[in-house]
């Protein structure tokens, strides 16, 4: 019976709404007071039933819930034969709860979409050599699985055979196809756009990167800040206090009407729901883009950050050297490029890969008489030509003439922090390439956005020499750049900023060898996540290396923190206005109180929902 009533709450809401409408209609059209009264009596009893049951269940476990207040208030009004109030208040309370549920689901939708991306089944290789569809829970580490086009990768694994391209949006938040072949790593929750892969399971279920993300986000959306814990403690005593106040009012004034009105006006709904709603919508917005904010405490601290410290290599720069500039001299350049590639192809020098990537497809020739000149480069015979590849010192040694333009180019590229690769064919300079670890695309613009968001100090720390660090620092418009720093120097630097200068510091790193700094900073931000350590020690995880997500993350944290404050303000403001209206005016009654009250709950939910569509303005 109890369950029946609770299950059909929505139907009861509709019926009681129709009854109230009928009652008023008969009163206003034909002036039939008997129909009016009975319609409202039935609506009151019907509507009060589910609320009373909820109140009873709460009291059984010693919780004085809102239902208790409303049940008492409605009973009071009913006994006073004020059926109009009792019917309207119950209806508004039920209808409000229905709207709350609908809108609340919207604010949670972003995270729900993410969790629904979890794979459910897998094609597992059985002993008889056939693939059989099994539940994902039944897959164990070491199982061999088949992933077909359009299917979700069920586990974290390694490709045994096959080729294909995978959309890794579920992990990185970026919908870019990534090619996979033998030995490639694949991740649970990503989708195979085309091809077929046979994989072996390395990690399953909650141990997969996707599983960790889900768990982290779910915990984060329900994590509570100091303010929220305070509100929770507060509301535990608040509802009984409202009950007590109403009782005292009745005791002294003997006015039951005022006493029950206080019960309704004192409902704390918007206050308890306001902050969680902002929290879940803000975290949901981030999660959709591969930005994981670990809870409302993190959001609060992050929104107040005034100093951002970056690790250089791999964070602000790509982490791998690449050709940044090329100059050609004289004729027969295609041939010269072919010779250069042929020589570099046989070298394992770190710069060789960058040069080969730059040249791309070309015609290779046989390389003979290769001679490695220590601290200079390589001299060899290719197609009967003497080819020298190396630095300026090698060119001088080979008596290569460096004309005025070449000398100017060399000076310019060196100034920009490049390592130089020169190629000469038969004693004549043909190609000059500048190679360096380049800054990430858009890095400068994104750092400026951070400044606009109120980060006063942008600091870069690096193990590289001060010269290189200065160049990158100037190029990106940083406020400070320090080189020659070991990991422990970095964490000591951050400690000093926090303890001696009282700054609120965020550290941005790739989590590879900077975990101490990630842990020490007020906010540790791991970029290009995926490594377990980074996910665990940091407060904010950016699942891919796109620096553009950093301003979004900061802007989102600020917007979410602001949103929480607005919601607290709305909730507290409404209660204050209602109570003072009751004291100082004569128009305040239970129905108006309930209407305003439910309105304020919807207001905070709708306000929180705005965060779902938050975008960082460029």
């Amino acid at each position, binding site marked *: 019976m109890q369950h029946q009533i609770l299950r059909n709450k929505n139907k009861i809401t509709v019926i009681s709404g129709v009854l109230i409408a009928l009652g008023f209609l008969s009163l206003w059209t034909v002036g039939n007071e008997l129909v009016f009264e009975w319609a409202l009596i039935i609506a009151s009893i019907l509507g009060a039933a589910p609320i009373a049951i909820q109140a009873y269940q709460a009291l059984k*476990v010693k919780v004085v819930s809102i239902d208790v207040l409303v049940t008492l208030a409605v009973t009071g009004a009913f006994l006073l034969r004020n059926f109009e109030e009792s019917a309207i208040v119950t209806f508004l309370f039920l209808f409000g*709860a229905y709207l709350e549920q609908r809108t609340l689901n919207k604010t949670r939708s972003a995270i729900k979409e993410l969790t629904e991306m979890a794979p459910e089944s897998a094609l597992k290789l059985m002993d008889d050599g056939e693939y059989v569809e099994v539940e994902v829970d039944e897959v164990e580490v070491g199982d061999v699985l088949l992933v077909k086009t359009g299917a979700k990768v069920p586990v974290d694994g390694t490709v045994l055979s096959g080729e294909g391209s995978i959309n890794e949006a579920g992990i990185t938040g970026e919908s870019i196809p990534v090619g996979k072949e033998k030995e490639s790593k694949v991740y649970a929750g990503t989708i195979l756009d085309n091809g077929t892969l046979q994989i072996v399971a390395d990690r399953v279920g909650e141990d997969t990167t996707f599983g960790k993300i889900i768990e982290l986000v779910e915990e984060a959306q329900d994590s509570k800040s100091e303010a929220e814990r305070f509100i929770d403690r507060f509301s535990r005593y608040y509802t009984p206090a409202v009950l007590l106040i109403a009782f005292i009012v009745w005791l002294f004034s003997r006015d039951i009407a005022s006493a029950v009105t206080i019960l309704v006006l004192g409902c704390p709904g918007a206050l308890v729901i306001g902050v969680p709603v902002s929290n879940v919508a803000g975290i949901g917005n981030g999660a959709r883009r591969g930005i994981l904010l670990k809870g409302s405490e993190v959001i609060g601290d992050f929104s107040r950050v005034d100093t951002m410290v970056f690790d250089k290599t791999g964070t602000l720069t790509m982490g791998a050297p690449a050709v940044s500039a090329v100059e050609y001299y004289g004729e027969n350049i295609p041939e010269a490029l072919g010779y250069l590639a042929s020589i570099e192809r046989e070298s394992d020098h770190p710069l060789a890969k960058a040069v080969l990537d730059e040249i791309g497809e070309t015609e290779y020739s046989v390389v003979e008489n290769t001679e490695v000149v220590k601290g200079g480069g390589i001299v060899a015979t290719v197609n009967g030509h003497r080819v020298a590849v190396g630095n300026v010192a090698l060119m001088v040694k080979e008596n290569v003439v460096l004309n005025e333009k070449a000398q100017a180019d060399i000076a310019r590229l060196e100034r920009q922090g490049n390592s130089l690769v020169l190629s000469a064919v038969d004693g004549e300079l043909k190609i000059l390439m500048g190679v360096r670890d380049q800054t990430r695309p858009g890095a400068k613009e994104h750092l400026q956005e951070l400044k606009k968001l109120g980060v006063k100090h942008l600091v870069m720390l690096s193990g590289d020499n001060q010269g290189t660090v200065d160049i990158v620092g100037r190029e990106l418009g940083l406020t400070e750049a320090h080189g020659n720093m070991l990991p422990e120097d970095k964490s000591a630097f951050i400690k000093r900023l926090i303890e001696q200068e009282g700054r609120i510091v965020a550290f941005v790193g790739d989590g590879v060898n900077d975990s101490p700094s990630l842990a020490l900073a007020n906010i540790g931000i791991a970029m290009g996540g995926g490594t377990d350590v980074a996910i665990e020690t940091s407060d904010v995880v950016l699942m891919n290396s796109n620096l553009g997500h950093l301003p979004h993350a900061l802007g989102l944290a600020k917007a979410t923190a602001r949103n929480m404050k607005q919601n607290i303000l709305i909730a507290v403001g409404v209660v204050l206005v209602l109570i003072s209206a009751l004291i100082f005016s004569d128009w305040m009654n239970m129905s108006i109180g309930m209407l305003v009250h439910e309105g304020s709950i919807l207001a905070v939910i709708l306000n929180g929902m705005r965060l779902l569509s938050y975008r960082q303005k460029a």
Partner: protein
Amino acid sequence: MMKAATLQLETLTCPSCAAKIEGALKSLNGVDQGSIKVLFNSSKVKLNFDADTIALDDITQAITKMGYIVEKSVVK
């Protein structure tokens, strides 16, 4: 023997639901009180319980009796 359970409930819509469920679970013998976590937004309950004293069914029952549907439960 202690076991960890994760229960997926129907969507919770009022924060006081969370308080009610927590209250109901706390009164159960065999449930580690400190481990009870009612996640309001993800509508999940996580707790540790002593499998020798109480069965998962009893825990599910306690929540169902409060009027909330348990959609899925996982024990580890």
